């Protein structure tokens, strides 16, 4: 708002923020695109004519679209059920409905392996129940990947549509019914059209996530090739130029989806209403009343099962679980080893310290970026807005390849620093991946602040620093804490970029889980997964505590 204060001071902040973002976000990705043309069009021709790459592209699209359909099929009805219908067990189901999002990507995949894999508990259980010779299914190929995606990504659809339904002006529905519209007509002509932006937005989000997904295809793909795994394979084979082409294709697809998403988000404003209170109706028929809690119970079990399974397996003795439905022997050894074997401490300490560094950087840079975006006017505002959103669209694999190809040597002229092979490359990757999370949450908080508050503080004689400390920062705090929490959770369980960039010395927990799995040390892998879940929980608690502590501190000053 304040154009005067914006004149000179703003550039003092815009410049460093832009430099950091251009250097860490744009430069690596630009060097990928440049790298893909290193041999003219040769690498692109190679990509276009390679049957494996064509197959990878096709499979990626099939899996992404399949994931969108499956996520909508699960998330949309669940959102309607939980916002519109009252039944016994609704609160419990609501509480666990977003649980899959709290599962670090690799842990989710591991849990699915334990549950639905060829020797998984559910698979063996069904096999034993039906007296089959073979497993009734194999968790392999596109179907398996879509299944895992649906489990973790339906949460986007569920959250978007629930929020849309909560916001929906109930008087619109009442007006329609007052005009004689039946329930189905109201749904078709009023509710769904108003929800379209939310549904479309969440679909694009699922599409983007599925496009860049790495863990599920990596573990369950079998012989299947998708772009993200293909990139890592090309890099391992030393075909860097091909990896650059594949990365470019993947990133461009994801960015296109992001642009579409932003467009839908702008259109979504009309759904915001003056007063919206979703009214939950009680079920009319007695059959429905009896079925709903049962359906709810089944869903709750399905949702909780992966977490429960990881915890159960973490107590299983390594190597003892072979053909039985459930692990036959239980022990505390896995955790005991974790506590005593200092070698096993390394990945945990690595994940914690790298997460702390990355999140601290995110907080500083993204707070400034959000402050500039919301409260300042300057010429290249649009550029800053794009830069903070960009890492959201670019898949983790692409970010990692970009960093790997940029920070692979010291070059003053090229503004490059040798980070590959050092500890610092992973915190940098985590920092980049956290940027959109922290900045968008902080922006959200600052947008709720009345911009004249800043004017008021300065009009009362407050210096820039005092205004920041006493007015802007408190207004930004809820978003900053929430964003930092999300960034921390993402970083602590990060797998996709880590697998490209890690070294033995800075290996994070996710890489340790993978290597334990490869040694068939399921119990140890699960114990590490439990540690990861505990860390996620700890970050959540720290965020709550931070929010609460500040609020209390404020209350003390009041006296």
């Amino acid at each position, binding site marked *: 708002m304040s154009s*005067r204060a914006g004149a000179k001071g703003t550039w003092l902040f815009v410049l460093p923020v832009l430099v950091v973002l251009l250097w860490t976000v744009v430069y690596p990705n630009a060097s990928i695109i440049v790298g893909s043309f290193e041999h003219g069009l040769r690498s692109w021709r190679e990509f276009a004519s390679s049957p494996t790459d064509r197959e990878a592209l096709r499979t990626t699209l099939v899996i992404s679209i399949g994931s969108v359909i499956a996520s909508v099929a699960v998330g949309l009805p669940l959102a309607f059920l939980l916002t519109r219908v009252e039944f016994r067990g609704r609160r419990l189901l609501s509480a666990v409905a977003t649980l899959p999002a709290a599962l670090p990507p690799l842990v989710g995949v591991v849990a699915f392996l334990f549950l639905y894999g060829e020797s998984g508990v559910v698979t063996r259980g069904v096999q034993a129940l039906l007296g089959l010779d073979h497993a009734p299914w194999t968790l392999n190929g596109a179907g398996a990947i879509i299944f895992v995606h649906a489990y973790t990504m339906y949460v986007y659809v569920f959250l978007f549509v629930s929020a849309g339904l909560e916001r929906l002006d109930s008087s619109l529905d009442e007006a329609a019914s007052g005009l004689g519209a039946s329930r189905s007509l109201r749904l078709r002509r009023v509710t769904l059209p108003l929800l379209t932006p939310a549904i479309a937005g969440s679909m694009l989000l699922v599409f983007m996530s599925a496009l860049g997904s790495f863990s599920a295809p990596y573990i369950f793909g079998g012989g299947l090739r998708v772009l993200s795994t293909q990139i890592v394979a090309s890099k391992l084979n030393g075909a860097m130029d091909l990896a650059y082409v594949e990365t470019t294709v993947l990133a461009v697809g994801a960015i296109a989806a992001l642009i579409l998403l932003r467009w839908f988000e702008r259109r979504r404003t009309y759904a915001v209403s003056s007063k919206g209170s979703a009214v939950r109706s009680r079920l009319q028929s007695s059959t429905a009343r009896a079925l709903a809690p049962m359906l709810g119970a089944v869903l709750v079990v399905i949702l909780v099962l992966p977490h429960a399974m990881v915890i159960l397996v973490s107590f299983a003795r390594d190597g003892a679980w072979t053909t039985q439905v459930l692990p036959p022997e239980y022990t505390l050894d896995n955790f005991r080893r974790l506590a005593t074997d200092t070698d096993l401490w390394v990945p945990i300490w690595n994940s914690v310290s790298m997460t702390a560094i990355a999140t601290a950087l995110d907080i500083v840079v993204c707070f400034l970026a959000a402050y500039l975006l919301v409260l300042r006017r300057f010429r290249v505002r649009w550029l800053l807005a794009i830069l903070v959103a960009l890492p959201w669209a670019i898949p983790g694999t692409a970010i990692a390849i970009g960093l790997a190809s940029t920070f692979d040597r010291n070059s003053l002229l090229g503004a490059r620093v040798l980070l590959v092979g050092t500890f610092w490359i992973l915190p940098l990757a985590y920092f980049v991946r956290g940027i959109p999370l922290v900045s968008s949450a902080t922006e959200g908080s600052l947008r709720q602040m009345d911009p004249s508050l800043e004017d008021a503080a300065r009009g009362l*004689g407050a210096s820039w620093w005092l205004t920041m400390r006493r007015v802007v920062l408190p207004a930004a705090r809820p978003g900053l804490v929430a964003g930092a929490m999300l960034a921390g959770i993402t970083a602590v369980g990060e797998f996709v970029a880590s697998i490209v960039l890690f070294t033995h010395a800075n290996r994070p927990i996710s890489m340790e889980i993978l290597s334990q799995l490869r040694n068939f040390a399921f119990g140890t892998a699960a114990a590490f997964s439990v540690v990861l879940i505990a860390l996620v929980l700890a970050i959540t608690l720290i965020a709550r505590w931070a929010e609460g502590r500040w609020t209390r501190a404020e209350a003390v000053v*009041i006296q």
Partner: protein
Amino acid sequence: MSGATPHLALDRLTRRFSEARAAVDAVSLEIAAGELVALIGASGSGKTTTLRMVAGYEAPDAGAVVLDGRDITSLPPQRRQFGMVFQHYALFPHLTVGQNVAFGLEARGVTRTERMSRAAEALAGVGLAGAAGRPIQSLSGGEQQRVALARALVIEPPVLLLDEPLSNLDPTLRRSTREELRATLRRLGVTALFVTHDQEDAFAVADRVALLAEGRLLQVGTAELLYDRPANREVAAFIGRSTLVAGTLDGDRITVQLGGASRSLRAAVAPGVPSRGVATAVLRPDALAFSPPDGRDAWTGVVQERRFAGALLAYRVRVAGDVDLELHSTVRDVQPGDTVWVRVAREPVAVVA
């Protein structure tokens, strides 16, 4: 202003948001120490932009803001030390009432004990003694307005700026609040510039009123001056109600012909109007009165509308094919359809170009 240097002066302040039109166009205004001036105008007339330039939130493209003879145009808001009451009050939601009021003192490095006692004093001054510990969310609209006022006043500003301070209040509260506002500002002898779109607010609070339209200052003066001696048609039309009728001016008299009857009235001619020729007479409803039948100095017409307005009744009387006179009267027994005679009861009438 005569004599001493004005306390606050706006010197040809100009602000353009686009090439085509200036949002504020060379506005000059002088405010004496202790004076309350209201800046009024329709929405989009540039009054808030003017206020924001005075406060320092908006930089003028041309012109200057002068305080006690010192050009402060380039000072940022925090160095002007003006108090400002924002339209939506801009109270810090995460601070208590007391902390809000004390904020400006905190910015000035006043010790905590002192700022708390001064905040309490300021709150008492606006009738909110003992409210210091309350959260902002617990306040009613009128209370919020008073906290905003206390917060602006506690820093003892040389000039107080108020941006639509009453527009968020319901009509009843608004009436009592503006009386309190005037009483408080008077008691403290504050110099104040306040923006409003509501002329009743302006008349009730301000010593002088400045009328803006499309970024230009049309007239400055007491409310009575603007009402009785509008500088031009726009002022006459914006301030109060009136019927503008064409007449022929000849020196200090204007002849107005309505229907068949031609009447000569004493004229108070606005500056710049040629002393002879066609001009416009401003007939205010309260300057008109019913006259006995066949009154020599009256126009005759038919009552079109009768509207009860409390102490008075508002009548609309058609005196010619296209002219309806609006008339306020305590006479109650006239009904629509009645034929009546209307005369000018208070002369001179204002004449504008």
